[in-house]
């Protein structure tokens, strides 16, 4: 690979958009060529320079209210709300998530006899429903803290297992807190990380068996899900981050877990 080719592929390279073969070719070229390596550094410096979470605008509450009013309403499903009271327009969206979740658990029993891949698909639906609910009802966290030493003990006594809480802040994944949630009908620890205001939920609960399972990728409606099993625990990470960043997050997360039985 010559310099001209290398430079023309620098952006897809740093964006993680190249196939493995060309990715490795560039990597080799950059090790040998100082000029191209400098261009790569400059390109990456732009991303660092503009990586400010506040650059992502968040939809104001007034807009959510307007959207609710914009469509003629025929649904008036009463919903029991947990915790603080929520405006009506949020209830409707939450209802959607909850109904999906209820539908899931009703079918869980018969699913247990199905192949594990189908089981995974169904769990992914539940993970998606939980994630959507958590970002929509403004109930991301029960314990708000960027400090793992606050979040980890918070789960004590609330669950019959102790989830590990990796600190990934030096890599740009800020800890936002944790909360108790239910995946289908079993309690899970939910850890919440933020990347440029994109929330990442990590659901953790003991795995059915001790075997280690490689990371699986699933998607639901524009949300990416990673699922794996490690040291007797089962993990689901979900976010609307792009695949590349979520993969990086999962790699860092896995590396930060205790390696004892790996």
């Amino acid at each position: 690979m010559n310099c001209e080719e290398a430079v023309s592929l620098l952006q897809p390279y740093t964006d993680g958009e190249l196939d493995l073969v060309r990715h490795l070719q560039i990597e080799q070229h950059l090790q040998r060529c100082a000029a191209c390596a400098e261009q790569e550094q400059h390109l990456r410096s732009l991303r660092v320079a503009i990586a400010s979470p506040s650059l992502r605008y968040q939809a104001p509450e007034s807009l959510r209210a307007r959207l609710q009013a914009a469509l003629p309403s025929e649904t008036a499903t009463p919903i029991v709300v947990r915790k603080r009271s929520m405006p009506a327009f949020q209830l409707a969206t939450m209802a959607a998530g909850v109904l999906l979740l209820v539908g899931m658990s009703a079918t869980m029993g018969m699913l247990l006899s199905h192949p594990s891949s189908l089981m995974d698909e169904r769990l992914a639906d539940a993970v998606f429903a939980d994630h959507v609910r958590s970002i929509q009802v403004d109930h991301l966290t029960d314990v708000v803290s960027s400090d793992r030493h606050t979040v980890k003990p918070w789960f004590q006594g609330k669950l019959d297992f102790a989830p590990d809480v990796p600190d990934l802040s030096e890599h740009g994944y800020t800890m936002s807190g944790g909360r108790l949630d239910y995946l289908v009908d079993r309690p899970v620890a939910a850890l919440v990380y933020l990347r440029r205001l994109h929330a990442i939920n990590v659901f953790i609960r003991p795995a059915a068996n001790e075997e280690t399972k490689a990371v699986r990728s699933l998607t639901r409606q524009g949300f990416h899900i990673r699922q794996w099993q490690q040291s007797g625990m089962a993990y689901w990470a979900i976010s609307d981050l792009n695949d590349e960043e979520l993969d990086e997050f999962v790699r860092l997360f896995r590396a930060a877990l205790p390696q004892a039985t790996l």
Partner: protein
Amino acid sequence: MEADERRQFELTTLPHLDAAYNLARWLTRDEHAAEDTVQEAYCRAARYFKSFRGGDGRVWFLSIVRRVTFDWLEKRRSQEALPFNEDLHDQSDESANPEFVAIRKCDEATVRQALEELSPLLREVIALREIEGLSYQEIATVTQVPMGTVMSRLSRGRSQLQQRLAASQEGGSA
């Protein structure tokens, strides 16, 4: 829209409301216009929901949002004389490979201004890639252009953004 369908519709679109608003806000550069265009896109999406065949709700909703927003930009342009860089169509300035220069961490206001000064198509691609984190393929689907066009816009957008930021870092006394 029946109750059941409406629930499905809300589940498809509302999780991506921040993404939709963020795109509209960067394109219109106006909070009220952004709310208006997202609302119109939401209503339009509801009308077309029957034609949505499942899959990626974010890409589907964003493609409608950007269409409505570009209509808004086009309409506003016909109402008032806009400066040159407001060109809504691709200038076929395919200047091979841009040269990149080193940029230090910028304060948020500087980045915001530099980004707002890019033309809409370049603002759009930067917002979708750098802020929203979409893949090239997803951006191509949202903006209805080939991947090659996405890459060349991204290249021009980054290069122009970098030049503006570099200039502000040289010029600024801070």
